[in-house]
């Protein structure tokens, strides 16, 4: 059975586009885990709330970019508040405690969203409409824009961490929080800021994703599940690994969708997850420590 070359190329592009958004969501997750050993089960809710907040701003202003900005700021702030009130007091305790805490938070946020925004789905319109011709398909420009923006945000984060004034604080705290504190770095503040950044990235993903699927309560579920898989496969706490894993898994799923339905293609991701846990549990792209 020959695979048409154009179909393959389309799936490559689809895979990369989806992969970039996934990378954006997963980066926030892995950043948070890497620095404070917290698995943020509320990440999907921050994603969804970001989309809802964005949709509200969009409704009043009609401007996509304002919506994006507002969601990022608003949810970032929410993240900071959550971390300070709920997670900071739990630092240093049994990891199960923080898992329960973020899980509880996810339930609270889910129900809040239902109460605040109601069950009716919302809409955010993409800022650029129009398609270009990709072989026999009309490929929307917006999808490409999303990929580019995601890459830009992740790139911005990486640049900040590597060269930014306080990037060193984040990287040092991630590697050794005790020694970072002994060097005068205000570790609790760094934790709060990083959590806020992670939340803001989730919110940005939500707004970017909004025009593609519509804003509703279940919009992120599949995506968040994949994000967790990406974080494990890429190596928990490993930013570069998450990005590679996100693209890798999305490409695999995109190729699999050539033969099976997309709903079934997700099996591929689970297979990779299981293989990773069996043979390279610290991450596919991370050398296994001896």
């Amino acid at each position, binding site marked *: 059975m020959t695979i048409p070359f154009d179909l393959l190329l389309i799936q490559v592009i689809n895979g990369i586009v989806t992969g970039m958004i996934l990378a954006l969501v997963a980066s926030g997750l892995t950043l948070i885990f890497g620095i404070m050993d917290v698995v943020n089960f509320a990440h999907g809710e921050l994603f969804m709330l970001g989309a809802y907040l964005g949709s509200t701003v969009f409704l009043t202003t009609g401007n996509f970019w304002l919506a994006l900005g507002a969601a990022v700021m608003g949810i970032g702030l929410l993240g900071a508040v959550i971390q300070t009130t709920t997670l900071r007091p739990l630092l240093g305790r049994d990891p199960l405690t923080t898992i329960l805490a973020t899980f509880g938070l996810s339930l609270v946020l889910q129900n809040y969203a239902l109460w605040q925004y109601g069950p009716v789905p919302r809409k955010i319109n993409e800022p650029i409409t129009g398609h270009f011709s990709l072989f026999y398909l009309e490929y929307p420009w917006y999808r490409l824009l999303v990929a580019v923006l995601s890459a830009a945000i992740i790139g911005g984060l990486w640049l900040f961490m590597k060269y930014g004034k306080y990037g060193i604080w984040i990287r040092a705290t991630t590697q*050794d929080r005790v*020694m970072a504190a*002994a*060097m*005068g770095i205000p570790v609790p503040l760094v934790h709060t800021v990083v959590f806020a950044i992670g939340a803001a990235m989730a919110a940005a993903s939500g707004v970017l994703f909004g025009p593609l699927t519509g804003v509703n309560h279940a919009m992120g579920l599949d995506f968040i599940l994949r994000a967790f898989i990406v974080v494990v496969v890429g190596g928990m706490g490993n930013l570069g690994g998450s990005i590679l894993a996100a693209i890798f898994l999305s490409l695999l799923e995109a190729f699999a969708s050539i033969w099976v339905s997309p709903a079934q293609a997700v099996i591929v991701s689970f297979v990779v997850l299981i293989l990773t846990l069996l043979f390279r549990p610290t991450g596919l792209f991370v050398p296994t420590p001896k």
Partner: protein
Amino acid sequence: MLSVQNVHTYYGKSHILHGVSIDVGPGEVVGLLGRNGVGKSTTLKTIMGLVRPSEGTITFEGRSVAGAAPYHLARLGIAYVPEDRRIFRLLTVLENLRTGLDRPGVPPERRDALLAKVYGSFPVLRERRNQAGGTLSGGEQQMLAIARAMMLEPKIILLDEPTEGLMPRMVAQIHEIIDVLHGDGVAILLVEQNVRLTLEVSSRVYFMEKGVVRHHAPAADLRRNDAVIHQYLGV
């Protein structure tokens, strides 16, 4: 300047420090000797806020600091060089130094001056400034750990076994660095197993045994009479 009074520290139920009292005056080099497991490292960790004491007081320049957060103590002027160095392996040498250098209130000229000074004392760090910390040899990592502490412009450095695992040539270098620091008026609380080095650089020495300070003498006396040393360190 630094006064530790009757400090008790537990790790869970394990009672490690049974009432430790130590004083360090401004600019003094004070040694803390004792066999393994007596609580020397725990004493430093308690001072640095890495472990919370259950009893006792710690005052620094008149302020009570027992149980304070480590980053606060670093800002007050206490720097810590741990036993296993703990440099940031994935950061470059320069970035390691910057964790101490990038503080509020340090104008660019002073930054550059500090960096130049440390590169002068440790030329190998200038050579390797863009290399990841984890690629440095053991001795170089020790240099980096001390240099990093110096970036805080501390009033006192808590040095935990700086010569452990180092070749004799590097031990001599540590000696020189301690002399330089002393010359700059930085106080040092030196935990060591290397008796000779300790006696050479310290003005006073404390001896610990089983979680308490058992003896305290000027280094000059100890250089003449080493019976005490055999008692607390020998077999």
